[in-house]
């Protein structure tokens, strides 16, 4: 594994007049990782990612993507990236295979278009026009165009927004397939379950700033946070105790009381940890 990060962002700023869309963001993405940038709508996720993709000029900060400055994109650098942007509605009159074949010609070492169509699960729709695809399958076409150049780094910007649950699960399986193949993936999303299933590492962004980094398992210290143990006492009333050593508490209770009615041990969920990190009053209200 090379030691250089696939993406390194240091104190990135992107201002529009007095509005600070991105206000001092820093994070690294390790090669081969699925890295999730998690945050509410308008937090600065897509602006950050569009700076990394070479679309937007930054106001300040250091950014390196595959060892190059995305502020000066070159075709050789672009050929190593795959971009799946937020909702798209172009390409309507072409079939799936025609579009993928076209984009394959733009890359020096493309994957075989037919194999890519197969890999993203569109073999049944290979001759369907893009305009006739459902939302979920349309997104698969976007992914096909993102990976046909055989990229080292793939950007997925809110890829499953608007999907039904089944389509999301199928899409996650596709992302896991790409990750297993060694592609570094930078995913933006506001879905916690998506992060929990897919991400090796994540950063939470809110109000243009990173408010936490970690893994889905330890975000916000939830792996070491006190657990709440809840059970029903002899009189039938609910009892709750917060403890850093839930196993010991349960053993003690068992020794004293025998089998416990309605026993549960609850650690903060990813959602609990996430909401406690956000600054909006509504999120604070929910997390309390």
């Amino acid at each position, binding site marked *: 594994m090379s030691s250089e990060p696939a993406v390194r962002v240091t104190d990135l700023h992107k201002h529009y007049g007095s509005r600070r869309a991105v206000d001092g963001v820093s994070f690294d993405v390790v090669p081969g990782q699925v890295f999730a940038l998690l945050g509410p709508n308008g937090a600065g996720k897509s602006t950050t990612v569009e700076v990394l993709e070479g679309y937007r000029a930054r106001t300040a900060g250091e950014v390196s993507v595959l060892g190059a400055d995305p502020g000066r994109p070159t075709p*050789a650098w672009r050929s190593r990236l795959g971009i799946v942007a937020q909702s798209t509605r172009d390409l309507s009159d072409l079939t799936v295979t025609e579009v993928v074949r076209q984009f394959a010609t*733009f890359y*020096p070492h493309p994957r075989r278009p037919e194999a890519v169509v197969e890999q993203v699960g569109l073999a049944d729709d290979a001759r369907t026009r893009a305009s006739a695809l459902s939302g979920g399958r349309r997104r698969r076409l976007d992914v096909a165009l993102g990976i046909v150049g055989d990229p080292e780094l793939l950007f997925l910007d809110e890829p499953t927004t608007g999907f039904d649950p089944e389509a999301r699960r199928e899409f996650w399986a596709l992302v*896991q397939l790409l990750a297993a193949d060694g592609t570094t993936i930078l995913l933006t999303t506001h879905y916690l379950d998506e992060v929990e299933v897919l991400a090796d590492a994540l950063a939470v962004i809110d109000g243009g700033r990173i408010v936490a980094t970690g893994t*889905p398992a330890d975000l916000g210290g939830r792996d070491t946070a006190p657990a709440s143990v809840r059970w029903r006492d002899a009189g039938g009333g609910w009892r709750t105790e917060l403890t850093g050593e839930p196993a010991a508490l349960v053993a003690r209770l068992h020794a004293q009381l025998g089998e416990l009615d309605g026993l549960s041990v609850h650690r903060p969920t990813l959602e609990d940890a996430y909401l406690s990190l956000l600054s909006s009053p509504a999120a604070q209200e929910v997390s309390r």
Partner: protein
Amino acid sequence: MSTTASTSTTSGPRTRQPAEPSAFRSPAFLARTSLARTAVELKELSRSWDALVFNVFFPIIFLFVFGSVFSGEVAPGVSFTQYFTAGMAASGVLLVSFQSLAISIAVERDDGLLKRLEGTPMPPAAYFLGKVGLVVVTGAVQMAVLLTAAHLLFDVDLPAGPQQWLTLGWVTVLGAAAGTLLGIAYSSIPRTGRSASAVTAPVVLVLQFVSGVFFVYSQLPGWMQDVAAVFPLKWMAEGFRAALLPESMAAAEPAGEWQLGLVALVLAGWTVVGLLLCRTTFRWRRRGDR
């Protein structure tokens, strides 16, 4: 759930031999990508009935309608349809170049296709050469069908000799070049893809009325002639009249002759203006996306 998060790296992160930067500047790469874009443009057009009718076959439909309704002569031995064919040829060149590109590029920008292409290593020139390829093919087909239909259905005389065929050729090429570059530049004016047709088609329609396409140019009011003389369509129409009308008709022009030198000069001038506008104003993204 989180156990599945570590599915990555069965094969380790990918490291590849990056392609040489020079590979992206090679003529072969530009040719390959431009051909791919041209093929896609033609495929999309062939599946888009509205564009086919309004841009490619519009002049032929109009020739049929006008040719069937008006049977008079503009001068002894010169039918109205003969005169009108020159105007329709000029309109057709403007439609397949200016109108077709102004609308399609505005739509593709608004749809996000241009942004998607910008994110790939495709040379930007390939996109424009794909549009040029589209204009060349549709323009050639349109001109061939128009002249054939006019000749067979309405007894319109084809260009009389090599000299007139040559004029037809260079006026077509130069007019299409100006229309292509101006169309690419004009595509930045419509604010959305939905408004593109509404913002573009009236311009072409008004130009057709004042430039001697629907009416005989020399019979238009002087001020209207002066307005039309600023824009390329009037000069294209005059060039095609020189190619399609008998020499005797030159005297009926306001200048008393075919001003072919001026035709070339004005069309070349608009080509240069179009190129400059494209270079300074072309955007790959919607307004406000920066």
